[in-house]
C-alpha cells in the first residue's frame, strides 16, 4: 500500500507521525494552508487493514476509536469513506488537498505518491 495525494501537493514525503496526525483527523492543513481532505476505504476492507497496520502502524480498531472519541465530543470529524480503489484514485486526483491510499500496483499517473519517512 502507498499513500497518494492530489498532484498539486508540494510534498513528496512526510514523517509517519504527521501521516498519523492527518489520518487521525487532527491535522487539517498542508504546509501551504490547503485544507486536508482525507479519503479512506471501509474499516472491514483488507486494503484499509493493511494500510493501517503496515503503513500507519495503528490497528484499524484503534483508528476507529480515535475518530469516535473526537466526533462524539465535538473535537473532530470522520474521514470520507470511499467505496472502491477506482473511486479513491478518481477522488484523490480531482480534490485539492486530498490524501488517500491504494495498492502500489494500482497507482495512476494523475496522483502523487508520498513517501513515508
Amino acid at each position, binding site marked *: 500500500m502507498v499513500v497518494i495525494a492530489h498532484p498539486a501537493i508540494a510534498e513528496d514525503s512526510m514523517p509517519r507521525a*504527521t501521516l*498519523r496526525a492527518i489520518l487521525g483527523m487532527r491535522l487539517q492543513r498542508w504546509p501551504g494552508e490547503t485544507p486536508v481532505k482525507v479519503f479512506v476505504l471501509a474499516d472491514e476492507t483488507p486494503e484499509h487493514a493493511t494500510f493501517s497496520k503496515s503503513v500507519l502502524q495503528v490497528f484499524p480498531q484503534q483508528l476507529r476509536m480515535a475518530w469516535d472519541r473526537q466526533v462524539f465530543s*465535538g*473535537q473532530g470529524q470522520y474521514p470520507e469513506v470511499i467505496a472502491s480503489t477506482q473511486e479513491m484514485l478518481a477522488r484523490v486526483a480531482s480534490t485539492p488537498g486530498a490524501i488517500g491510499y491504494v495498492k502500489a500496483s494500482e497507482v495512476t499517473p494523475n496522483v502523487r505518491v508520498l513517501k513515508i519517512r
Partner: protein
Amino acid sequence: MCVCSRFAKTTASIALAGCLLSWHTASHALDLLDGDFQLHGFASLTLVSTTDNNLFGQSDNQISKDFSEVGVNASWRLTPALQLSGGLLSRRAGGTDDGGVRLDYGLLDWAPMSSEGGRAGIRMGRIKTAYGLYNTTRDVPFTRPSIILPQSIYFERTRNLTVSADGAEVYVERFGEGGTLSASFAYGQPQTDTEAAKVPLVGLDRPGKLDSKLAPDLQILYEGAGNSYRLAFTALRLDLKYQPGYRDILQAGRFRLTPLIFSAQYNAENWSLTSEYALRRTSISDFGPYFYNGTFNGQSYYVQGTYRLTPQWEALLRYDAFYADQNDRDGKDFAAATRLPGFTRFAKDWTVGLRFDVTPQFMLRAEAHFVDGTGFLAAQDNPNPQALRRYWDNFMLQASFRF
C-alpha cells in the same frame, strides 16, 4: 407526576431519532458541503435487573427499562482552523435523569497554530470535561468498554458535575515519532443547577441550591506508537457552595473536591488492558451539626481486560473498587457517626461482559456485575439507606444503534 411527561419525552426522543434515521436511509448521506458538515447520532436502550437494591429505576427483582440514551451531533468545519460542533442528548436513568433533551456540548474549536509537528488551539462554549480516558464520550455506548463505565471513577450519580462545563479550554498537541503528547487546560462553569447534581452531595429533599465556582481541569495525555499505549493524568478542582433554602436544617456549607486520576491503557491487536486510579480529596465544611463534615481521601481504581474473540465478538473482565474514605475503607467510623450502613461507603464490583457488533452500526451487549457494597448507588432510586443490601448482583442487556 411524571409518567406522562416521561413518556412524552421518550416518545419525542424516539421520534427524533426515527426521523433522522429515515432521512439517513432515504438520502444515504449525512455529509453535506463536501463532507465539511457532518451529522451523527446514536440510540440505546438497556434492560437492568438486580438481585437487591435499585439501579436505573426499579430493578430490584424486576426488569427496569429506565435506562436509555439518545444523542445527535453536528459538526461544521468552517475553515481548516475552525470547527463548530454541537451535541444534543436525551438520557433516561431511573430517578437521576428524566430524558429531557439538553445541550451536551456546543463549541467553537479554533486551532490557529498547526504544522506537521503539532497544533495548538482553544475551544470555547460548552466543553466536555477531560476526566480519565472515557469521560468525554461517556454517554456514547460504542465508545465505552462496557454497558456502564467503571463506577469507581465514572460515577453515574454525580455525573452532572463532571460531564461538561461552560467556558474555554486551551490545548496543545505534539506529533512525535514515538507518539502524540497532548495537554489541555479548561476553565469553566460545571452544571450544578439540577436535582441530579445536588442530591448525591447533600441528599434528598433539600430546599437549598448548589453553586459552583469556575472549575480548572488539566489533562496530560501521551498516546504512544499508534495508540498501542495511552497514559494520562487528570487533575480537576470543584469548589461548591450550598445555599440553604427556606427552613433548611443545613447551613451554608462548602464542598471542595479534587480528584486526581492516573490512567494507563495497553492495546494489542486482539486485546486491551486498561487501569485507572483516582485519589479523590474531599473536604466538606460549614454544613452545621446535621451533616457529615470533614476532610477525607477517597480512593478508586479498576483493572479491565477486553479480548476480541472474533472481529464481531468481544469479552470483558473487570475488577472495580471504590472507597469513599481510604482511612475508613469498611465505613465503620461513618456508620458510628451517622447510623447509616457502613457498606454505603464502598463498592467492589466484579464485572463480566460480552459485546456483539452485529453490524458496524448495531451493537448488542450483555453484562453481569457482582457487587459488595452500595457506594455508587443513587439515593433517588434507593431513598431508604436502611433498606439497602450489602451484596447484590446486577444483570444488563443493551441494544445500541448509531449512524
